[in-house]
């Protein structure tokens, strides 16, 4: 929730500074607005605050124990300190505890959008100390052979962001929490595979996971490619919603797609097509030269000039015989936006008709 300046009529003290806030704002949100980096692991601004990781605790004058800033609303006159030595020490201990339950902390950023959150905090707090060693929690599910989502729960820290994003954002309720305490485990109905659940493979759980326990299997195919990951912001071409995405490339290879958390239409959401269906771009079967159908039904490779001449003849022929309304253009959702634009220009200006559409309206 971001309040407008005029709604911020109450005041509190934040790390020694008088600040204003609006009714309903949490301490975390107020701190965020003032560029204070309060650490979190179970927090995703799109979801209802959960209060599980407890890294966001801050000191409030008069309170017996620190409070979770993500779930505590600001109140008039509150005096809040976000990073006293005592609180920072508690955070370090908590992070050392989290590291101790996990197989590894450094994970490949191709795993997912938020996959570096734990790593980053562990470095920030110098928390990879080897303290608190003991049993690991979470058990990876290698039996789920779906082509999209790796369920590597050895890395899971039970923040339940995946479960909450699936319920609150996607409305699919495909996954949930099984057992309790240190034995908690992310599951589907009857502990089966995702494909037998109500999962739509939208990938949101993958992208919100702060440890890479849920990982993008398709992107991980590019793990061994040389080069840095480059991200290019664009719009998903598949349908009319217009979700913003970042295309991940290594060199000239497209390796994966991540939703843009600040995309105005999607705010981090995608569907299975926008998230995972990009293989056609670099697929071996993709056509690279025009083909001309022969009388016997087979196709023959031809040059571009020949192909364009043939197509132009066809259009001209139809126009002369049947008039401008005999032409109807459908642009492909698999083509770039520039092509879609050219297509409608071509139909409208070239033939004088509005008979044009895009397959992604289907």
């Amino acid at each position: 929730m971001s309040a407008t300046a005029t709604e911020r009529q109450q005041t509190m003290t934040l790390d020694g500074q008088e600040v204003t806030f609006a009714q309903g704002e949490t301490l975390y949100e107020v701190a965020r607005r003032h560029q204070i980096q309060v650490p979190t692991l179970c927090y995703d601004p799109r979801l209802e605050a959960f209060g599980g990781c407890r890294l966001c605790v801050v000191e409030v004058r008069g309170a017996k124990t620190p409070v979770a800033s993500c779930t505590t609303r600001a109140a008039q006159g509150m005096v809040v300190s976000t990073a006293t030595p005592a609180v920072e020490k508690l955070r370090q201990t908590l992070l050392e505890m989290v590291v101790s339950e996990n197989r590894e902390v450094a994970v490949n950023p191709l795993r997912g959008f938020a996959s570096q959150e734990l790593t980053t905090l562990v470095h920030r707090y110098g928390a990879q100390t080897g303290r608190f060693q003991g049993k690991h929690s979470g058990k990876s599910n290698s039996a789920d052979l779906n082509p999209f989502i790796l369920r590597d729960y050895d890395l899971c820290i039970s923040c339940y962001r995946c479960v909450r994003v699936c319920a609150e954002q996607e409305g699919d309720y495909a996954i949930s929490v099984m057992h309790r305490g240190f034995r908690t485990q992310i599951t589907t109905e009857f502990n089966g595979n995702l494909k037998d659940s109500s999962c739509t493979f939208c990938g949101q759980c993958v992208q919100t996971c702060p440890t890479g326990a849920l990982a993008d299997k398709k992107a991980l195919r590019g793990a061994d490619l040389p080069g840095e990951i480059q991200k290019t912001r664009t719009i998903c071409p598949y349908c009319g919603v217009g979700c913003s995405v970042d295309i991940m490339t290594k060199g000239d290879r497209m390796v994966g797609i991540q939703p843009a958390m600040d995309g105005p239409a999607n705010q981090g959401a995608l569907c299975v097509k926008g998230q995972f269906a990009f293989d056609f771009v670099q697929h071996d079967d993709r056509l690279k030269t025009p083909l001309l159908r022969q009388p016997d039904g087979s196709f023959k490779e031809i040059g571009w000039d020949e192909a364009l001449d043939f197509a132009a003849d066809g259009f001209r022929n139809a126009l002369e015989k049947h008039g401008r309304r005999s032409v109807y253009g459908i642009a492909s959702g698999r083509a770039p936006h520039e092509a879609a634009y050219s297509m409608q220009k071509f139909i409208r200006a070239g033939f004088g008709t509005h008979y044009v559409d895009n397959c992604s309206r289907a």
Partner: protein
Amino acid sequence: MPKPTNQEIVARWRDQPAPLLAVLHAFHERDGFLSSDALDGVSKGLKIPIAELYGTVTFYHHFSLQPSGPTLRVCTGNVCRLRGGLELLEALSPKGAKSMPCAGRCDEPVPVLSGSESLVGTSIDTLRAKPSPLPAPNPGGYAECIFAHIREPDRSTLAGYRRTGGYEALSKALREMTPAQVVGIITESKLAGRGGAGFPTGAKWKAVADAPGHPKSIVCNADEGEPGCFKDRAIMDHDPHTVLEGMVLAGYATGAERGFIYLRYEYPETFRTLERAIIEAQAGGLLGRGILDGGFNFEIHLRRGAGAYICGEEGSLLNSLEGKHPFPRNKPPFPVTHGFENLPTAVNNVETLASVPHILRQGATWYRGLGRNGHAGTKLISLSGDIRRPGNYEVPIGLPLKTLLFDWAGGPYSGRTIQAVTMAGLSGGFLAGDAMEVTLDEPSIRGKGSFLGAGGIIVFDDSRDMVRAAHDAMEFFADESCGKCFPCRIGTQRLTERLAGGAGPRDLSAWTEEVRDIGAAMRATSACGLGMAAPFVSDSLLQFFPEAVRFHVAARHTEKP
């Protein structure tokens, strides 16, 4: 009678308030487990997504997802372990017996749950069904509140209850008092919550009465999961109508018309007793519509838990009632404004509610006067472990602990001395040595770094290994941690591993520092009382038994690396 069909079971409960646990128990009783068909039916009927339902069912200890014969559950709780619980479990394991945490019968170990019957005994040969013990007459000769009439014959029936003033308080309140006056008397009596947190009951009721939103609810917290606590069971088994009367009064005082009793699974006889009492009260015009021919309506719905200590925590309890995953809720908002179904709700412990009719009948001044040294009222103490006369005692608040242990309960067995006692069941950790010179009231016990809480006291004599006792206590918290928050989910596990031996640094000061740091993080940052209280166990062990800890860590050197 033919067994009910899936549709019939779902239809029976679907439109009742808080249907999920009842529906699951109905399926479990019919089939002996929860089949995927049953869960599908519940999911569709109650509109709970199937994955969520599946996850929630696995949270509870007593639901089985596979066909399994009739189950025997043997208490291997912290007191029963001192009395042969583990040996009995082993003896019964050929019959498929499983363990369960403290089953609230520590005064008469070892309880075994067989279907919907509780057996007690320390060997297969002595196991038999037996009603829970009545509290002994007050050994100190003090005036009692809750136990004043509990030993009268037929007290658990409506007629027996009425013989000594039962439901007179209700009749007086409905006819002569405004709701605000009822709240006023409870406030004046200084009655405070007896479920552990000690919140003033009058203030809680006033908050519910003042909160906007209807319908409001009264929830009687009868989950009694704290190891070493069995006082609520005694009240409900022998004096169920006081609890019902207390609830109706709470309803009248707050404007609530719905009541729930959330009863722990391990008390099947209590369930039947309460069920009977509710029917009697309804028939007697004391519950339902137009109570005592006036305009006040109040229903009581009895629901059974399914084996989860955390469901005694009020937020978790409310989620459990509502059919949600039973994680505790973030506070604020508190249940008084956002309780059952997000509406104003008073969650009160059995003992708290059972005090209410007595207070209204005899007055706030009388109740306050029952305490000692300026403390108001009485507290039930469940005393168990290495003590001659374990059982429930109603003590004036402020009574010296040693008076209870030695004068009332006969002290330790011959040749033994008392090494330590727990407070608040297990949640207050241990008191030992001079720290046992306390009086039974919060200020005194908090002064020693612990708390009285729900009033369970477990005695350990000098034959006991205190590291082992601390391990068993921490293991309970680890098994019962809900898994919502990091400090408790990981902390209870790490502390248990360290107390078991075989984990943690081999150097004493490093070991101690780890245990202290985990404890500090848990106390300061846990999301609910379970994680905040669990380190009382490890910290009090470090404080009172440093030698035993030194030995324990030194043994790490002889272990294989």
